[in-house]
């Protein structure tokens, strides 16, 4: 579904702040694969997702989505096929617009936006049902401004929006990192449900090893702009935290003290 061939990206080339964020990275995602991405700060996880989303052009390599070369496509054009949830809960929704207006905007992802009325009666009932499914009591707040919702609620809504028009690819960029543990668990569970119900292909970045192991069908670990570990199938199911740390040491060539080091390694 998604294929990256020898993709590289360097930030601030030729300056003292030069940073090789992606180095000759290749990755292939089969349809329906749910890949968790783990790695320390500066490992290139977010850069990988932004390269796929088209936030900026890559320096080299090719990006294919469903067989189509999207390397030269601008962000809004790729968005036709890609749903995204950001780390910052404020980023995925329009705060001064109503809840139903936000959902309606998402429903038209990739469609021509013409002079038809934005929120139709039929849609409204669909939204109510979808929101009721979230179990957050949002079904009665369709006309509330999204800015009035909590971070967790907004992130759940963003997830719903990203999947509302079934995307070929779902990108989750540490979308639970800014939430409290209980809310984060809820949003993660919701992510699982949405991905499996719609058979979505997804890439999810996380800082949390346990989450990376527990969720998804495949796990990749990144370091210095490369994929240094790629585990799927049965091996992924049996993976433990201890084993992950050991294999990181083997591949990266240096020892990790603990989960904590991976979190803060720079």
């Amino acid at each position, binding site marked *: 579904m998604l294929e990256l061939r020898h993709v590289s990206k360097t930030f601030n080339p030729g300056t003292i702040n030069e940073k090789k964020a992606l180095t000759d990275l290749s990755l292939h995602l089969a349809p329906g694969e749910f890949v968790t991405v783990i790695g320390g700060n500066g490992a290139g996880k977010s850069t990988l997702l932004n390269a796929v*989303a088209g936030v900026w052009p890559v320096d080299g390599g090719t990006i294919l989505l469903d067989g189509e070369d999207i390397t030269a496509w601008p*962000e*809004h*054009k790729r*968005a*036709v096929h890609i749903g*995204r949830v*950001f780390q910052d809960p404020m*980023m*995925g*929704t*329009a*705060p*001064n*617009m109503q809840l139903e*207006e936000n959902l*309606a*905007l*998402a429903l*038209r*992802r*990739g*469609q021509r*936006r*013409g*002079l*038809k*009325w*934005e929120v139709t009666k039929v849609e409204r009932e669909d939204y109510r049902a979808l929101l009721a499914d979230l179990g957050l009591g949002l079904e009665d707040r369709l006309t509330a*401004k999204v800015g009035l919702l909590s971070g967790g609620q907004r992130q759940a809504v963003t997830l719903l*929006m990203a999947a509302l028009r079934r995307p070929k690819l779902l990108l989750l960029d540490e979308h639970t990192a800014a939430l409290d543990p209980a809310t984060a668990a809820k949003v993660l569970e919701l992510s699982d449900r949405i991905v499996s119900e719609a058979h979505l292909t997804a890439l999810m970045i996380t800082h949390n090893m346990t989450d990376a192991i527990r969720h998804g069908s495949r796990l990749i670990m990144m370091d210095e702009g490369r994929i240094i570990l790629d585990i799927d199938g049965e091996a992924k199911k049996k993976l433990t935290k201890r084993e992950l740390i050991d294999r990181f040491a083997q591949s990266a060539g240096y020892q990790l003290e603990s989960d904590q080091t991976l979190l803060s390694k720079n």
Partner: protein
Amino acid sequence: MQAYFASLSLLKLLKNMPGGIAQGLIWGVMALGIYITFRLLDVADLTVDGSFTTGGACAAMLILAGKSPWLALAVAMAAGILAGLCTGLLHTKLGIPAILAGILTQFALYSVNLHIMGMAANKALNVDKYPLLVSSRYVPAAIGKGAAIAVVLVALMYWYFGTEQGSAIRATGDNPAMSRALGINIDNMKVLGLALSNGVVALAGGLMAQYQGFADINMGRGAIVIGLAAVIIGEVISRAVFKKYLNFAVTLGFTVLGGVLYYLVVVVVLWLKLNSNDLKLFTAVIVALFLSVPHFRDRAQHSFRRKKAGEVSGDA
């Protein structure tokens, strides 16, 4: 001092009020255009000082050429749309910050406007010779027509910004990152919003030229400030009256009302025999005061200063 007060006639003030309302309605119509950029797109667009004059110049020349005032207004609007298009393209295609793009277009429009008016700085429109839509000679009719145009425009804007396209414009102003992620071409939306906004502003310019009976190369000077004043006065008053955020159409209605109130204040100031050359200074002070209201209201609600026991916090 006594002589000063004795010279003020309340009757004269009352006599000037209807004229103030008529002119205020036209400023209110212009403020509707400014609302699109300032509130929906989150851009302070300085093109309007030029495009307001463009509208007035176009309308005046066409009416002088014997065309119908309605056609004149339509052409004025089209010219304003072109002006907004320029600003939009300077901003999105050439990467010039929105404020600077607006200033550049406005600056260039000065020459363009002179060309439109045949290199004259002033073009008179005599209401006895031409079938003007609104005129200061017939104030009640001007108020009626001005209000009707404002109502139609509010209805049109309410409809348009409720459509898929209008919502995409609003989303672009509210959260550009999200809009891109939802497949909205935000550059196109900005250009579209700027064009529509300046179209409305130029329409108001065309009305103003007819109302005052002339188009003048400087008639748009300070239009952005007056427009902002109208938007903010409308918001502050609607919030003071209703204590909550309102339906979009009502908000737009209050914007027009803001324009009327602004101009009534001007009428009072002139009646007080303050030097009319100080009017711009006075307007700037008023706008600064109103612009600061949301800031101070916020501060009052989220202040670190301890509230005295029993003191109730501001309206939430």
